[in-house]
């Protein structure tokens, strides 16, 4: 795909889906809090964005200003890059690379760097605590994450996301490796530090890495963070739910339906599942998710043969 088209496509997709994530977040929030009438939810993200744009950006006493400016830009860039690895319809792929899942994994793992810098740069207690939480969280989830993504490459005999989708013609990977999707979604929540795994930006840290951020800087940080969640959901749809494959409807619509289905599950879980303690999250990654992911690799592998 030509770079100009790629930029336009990814840009529009990200803007639309990030907006929808914000709407979903509001609607699920209202639902759980027992309020009816969701009409307001559709305009709310725009009002919130306008409010943030009307506020001044905060600076602390002696921050690492360049790192602070870089962090949201890097995070948003990584969300966009991760999305380029995923075919959005048959043949509509920004980057048809052989090592597609490696590209996606590289983009997602770098999120850790963006969040660490975002918290560290403020030179303030709670953001710094958030930065170190992100490091511990991302290190704990990244191995099981990579393992389940690699497992989807087994039947495809390729690391290309396009081939992984077409290998699901007969059977979706979610059936071939039932442990895969849940582990993928949990670890994906960890990388996008979204509730219930929003430990780096949690309320017990008064907002963590974004505790000292306001105005436009806070707006771009929230948008960038949602873009990671969108990329995670899109990859989940492609790698486990057969991507654009499906009867009757056009491919891109199937892809959209599946992606937003996963996004709904991810956003919903934030309101329904408690945030674990830091130690519990680390233990969960190493002593539950990692062994399960290994079981997943070998059982699905044996079944593939």
């Amino acid at each position: 795909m030509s770079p100009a088209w790629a930029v336009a496509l990814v840009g529009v997709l990200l803007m639309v889906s990030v907006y929808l994530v914000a709407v979903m977040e509001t609607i699920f929030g209202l639902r759980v809090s027992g309020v009816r009438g969701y009409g307001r939810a559709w305009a709310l993200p725009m009002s919130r964005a306008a409010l943030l744009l009307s506020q001044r950006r905060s600076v602390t006493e002696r921050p690492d200003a360049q790192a602070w400016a870089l962090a949201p830009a890097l995070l948003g860039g990584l969300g966009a890059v991760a999305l380029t690895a995923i075919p959005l319809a048959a043949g509509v792929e920004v980057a048809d690379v052989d090592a597609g899942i490696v590209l996606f994994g590289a983009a997602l793992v770098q999120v850790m760097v963006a969040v660490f810098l975002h918290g560290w740069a403020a030179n303030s207690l709670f953001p710094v605590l958030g930065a170190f939480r992100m490091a511990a969280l991302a290190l704990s989830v990244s191995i099981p994450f990579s393992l389940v993504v690699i497992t989807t490459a087994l039947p495809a005999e390729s690391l290309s996301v396009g081939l992984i989708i077409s290998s699901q013609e007969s059977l979706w990977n979610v059936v071939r490796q039932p442990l895969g999707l849940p582990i993928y979604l949990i670890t994906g929540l960890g990388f996008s530090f979204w509730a219930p795994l929003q430990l780096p930006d949690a309320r017990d840290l008064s907002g963590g890495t974004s505790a000292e951020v306001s105005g436009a800087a806070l707006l771009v940080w929230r948008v960038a963070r949602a873009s990671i969640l969108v990329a995670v959901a899109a990859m989940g749809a492609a790698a486990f739910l057969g991507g654009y494959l499906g009867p009757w409807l056009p491919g891109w619509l199937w892809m959209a339906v599946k992606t937003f289905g996963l996004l709904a599950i991810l956003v919903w879980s934030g309101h329904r599942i408690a945030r674990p303690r830091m130690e519990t999250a680390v233990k969960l990654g190493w002593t539950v998710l990692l062994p399960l992911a290994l079981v997943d690799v070998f059982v699905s592998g044996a079944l593939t043969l």
Partner: protein
Amino acid sequence: MAELGATLTVFLVAVVAIGVVRWVGDTLNPVQLTVPERVPFAGGFDPEFHAWSRFHIRWYSMALLFLAFDMEMVFMYPWAVVFVREGMISLVEMLMFILILVVGIVYTWRERGFEWS
């Protein structure tokens, strides 16, 4: 390479776009802060010290474990590609490799390396 050109462009444009939004915000509300406006927030009292200190992480054993496992992941990718072609031998071989590494996790867990408070 050609395929990744588009990815690189998308990355650069996204980075610049976010920079532009931030710049627009700064133009609308110029950032000229006085000393009290820059004090880091800890609930109402000024911090005595810089927050940047030698930060003692309690999960350093986990970090070391990660380094070893990260190496292992590098082998997994090419393995996955040839898995079906090579058949049973690849399964057994990787199983052996992983089981060796799992001993490391079990050991860390027994030494309470995942606990810190």
